[in-house]
């Protein structure tokens, strides 16, 4: 936790300004000459604010799906999960700190029994909510309720414009679930909700189709970057877009401008040409962070690892003390070194890319992003060889106990199991009858095993890969309105 994290966002105070920087900086020089000088807004953000601009809050690790790229390795509920009362006191604190909105995710946040209670509590306490969901709980009645609330926004996760592509990653049936949910939202008159897509090798060719789906449902399309975080670390090699696809994605984003949201997640592509709309800033620990279901505070949603753990909201002083005083966050707010990227002419645009992407692919923090468009990351990945990669500190993937597996298999075959811990007089099980049970699908290739019984329970967390806390926000040029 005390490790210095140089590199990714070094605010090179000099020279090349992105168009957005130019807008943000426009007034700095003229605004208040008689007062203490204030730098570019991005520099102000780089050095941290007293409270986050917004944050991501994963309410639960429980999920009815099991996406192969889930950032938070969700599946099972953690017994240490914050209680309703604890969640409310976090909301109270966010209200006091004037954190105006939270991006709620999971797991699948709607599986929490107190989900709507917490949403209502937040909006009643001046904390706006956008939540990510796989859509499984968005029926007609829920859609009506959501359409009636100004303060709540919804983000439906979909990672393929066809069931074939989507369900490969998010699990069988998840495409239909998401489409049904969007239908309910449309019927309820909720326009402008978000359709959120994690860009993969398999779906880059479907960008126009995603846009058409979003348009059909009156939604706004949001594309975000696949990160090698959580279970995504195991599937990144197979899912992450190829170099040619990165260019295709960049060109598509440039052509669609601010019609499409990106959660500011593609600033590593800026070296292809002009910067994409957005702050082009890694806000981790500076203007955004993550609160996980057990109250742990991490620098960002893509960095659930002890290396990026700043503290816990349950500790004395609560979230505010973690945010303002944690050693990790204070370090992140210091000027960062560009390291190996220092001599690159594009550094001021891409800033070395994503801290979490480098960390989980085993690359040095003060070097290129694994998907550096100049190919520097790829070279390093080759040299890295079989070096031991960091694993997430927590894994809530559904790994069934022996008993659970027996129960699942027995149920499928209509066999009644004796109660656990039954006496020796209980007749022995017919093991052959349950021998054909599926094994864990993730042991080797995480994409293997689809179609087996267990896999029916696999699919997506609400918004894997997709929770940049600036999520859903475009930056508009105030000078152009």
């Amino acid at each position: 936790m005390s490790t210095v994290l140089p590199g990714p966002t070094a605010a090179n105070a000099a020279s090349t300004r992105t168009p957005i920087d130019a807008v943000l900086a426009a007034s700095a020089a003229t605004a208040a000459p008689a007062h203490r000088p204030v730098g570019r807004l991005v520099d102000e953000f780089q050095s941290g604010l007293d409270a986050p601009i917004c944050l991501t809050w994963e309410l639960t690790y429980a999920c009815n799906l099991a996406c192969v790229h889930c950032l938070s390795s969700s599946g099972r509920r953690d017994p240490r999960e914050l209680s309703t009362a604890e969640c409310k006191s976090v909301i109270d604190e966010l209200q006091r700190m004037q954190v105006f909105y939270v991006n709620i995710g999971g797991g699948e946040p709607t599986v929490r029994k107190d989900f709507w209670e917490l949403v209502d509590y937040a909006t009643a306490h001046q904390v706006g909510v956008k939540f990510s969901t796989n859509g499984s709980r968005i029926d007609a009645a829920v859609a009506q309720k959501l359409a009636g609330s100004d303060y709540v926004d919804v983000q439906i996760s979909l990672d393929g414009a066809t069931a074939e592509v989507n369900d490969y990653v998010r699990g069988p049936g998840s495409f239909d679930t998401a489409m049904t949910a969007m239908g309910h939202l449309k019927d309820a008159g909720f326009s402008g909700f978000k359709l959120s897509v994690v860009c993969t090798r398999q779906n880059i060719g479907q960008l126009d189709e995603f846009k058409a789906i979003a348009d059909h449902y009156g939604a706004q399309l949001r594309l975000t970057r696949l990160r090698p975080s959580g279970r995504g670390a195991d599937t990144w090699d197979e899912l992450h877009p190829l170099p040619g696809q990165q260019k295709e994605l960049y060109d598509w984003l440039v052509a669609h401008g601010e019609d499409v949201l990106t959660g500011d997640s593609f600033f590593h592509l800026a070296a292809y040409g002009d910067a994409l709309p957005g702050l082009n800033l890694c806000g981790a620990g500076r203007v955004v962070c993550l609160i996980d279901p057990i109250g742990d505070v991490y620098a960002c949603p893509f960095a659930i690892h002890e290396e990026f753990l700043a503290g816990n909201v349950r500790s004395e002083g609560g979230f505010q003390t973690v945010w303002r005083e944690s050693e990790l966050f204070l370090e992140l707010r210091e000027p960062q070194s560009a390291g190996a990227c220092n001599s690159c002419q594009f550094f001021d645009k891409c800033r070395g890319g994503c801290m979490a992407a480098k960390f989980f692919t085993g690359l040095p923090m003060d070097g290129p992003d694994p998907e550096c468009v100049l190919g520097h990351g790829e070279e390093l990945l080759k040299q890295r060889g079989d070096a031991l990669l960091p694993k997430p500190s927590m894994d809530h993937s559904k790994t069934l106990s022996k008993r659970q597996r027996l129960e699942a298999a027995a149920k499928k075959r209509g066999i009644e199991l004796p109660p656990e811990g039954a006496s020796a007089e209980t007749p022995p099980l017919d093991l052959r009858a349950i021998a054909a049970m599926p094994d864990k699908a993730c042991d080797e290739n995480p994409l293997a095993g689809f179609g087996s019984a267990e896999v029916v329970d696999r699919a997506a967390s609400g918004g894997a890969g997709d929770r940049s806390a600036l999520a859903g926000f475009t930056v508009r040029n105030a000078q152009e309105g």
Partner: protein
Amino acid sequence: MSTPTITSAGADAPTATTPEQADVVARRRLDFDPAAAWTLHPQVALRPERFGALAYHFGTRRLSFLKSPRLLAVVEALADHPTAVDALEACGIAPAERPAMETALATLARTDMIARRSPA
């Protein structure tokens, strides 16, 4: 529900160097009548920062950055004065700085961060 956006309202005076730009500047001013009575929109919350303030509109879910503490002071003063011009004067904004401030207020008006009110 509308699209969340981030805007920034600076207090800079845009310099019009072409007829097109002059047109844009003029149109922008039209959104905002400094002789009228204004107030912070009731659904907007302000969070003071060293650089100025964050302004968040709960209805449109739009986030704006007020990029100067003096602009924040003006915005906060709007409701207490019969016109925006009076609020600018009360905050000690010199005549030379007013075009810049008015342009920033026009940006905020266009995005519903501040709203007209009936003169008290």
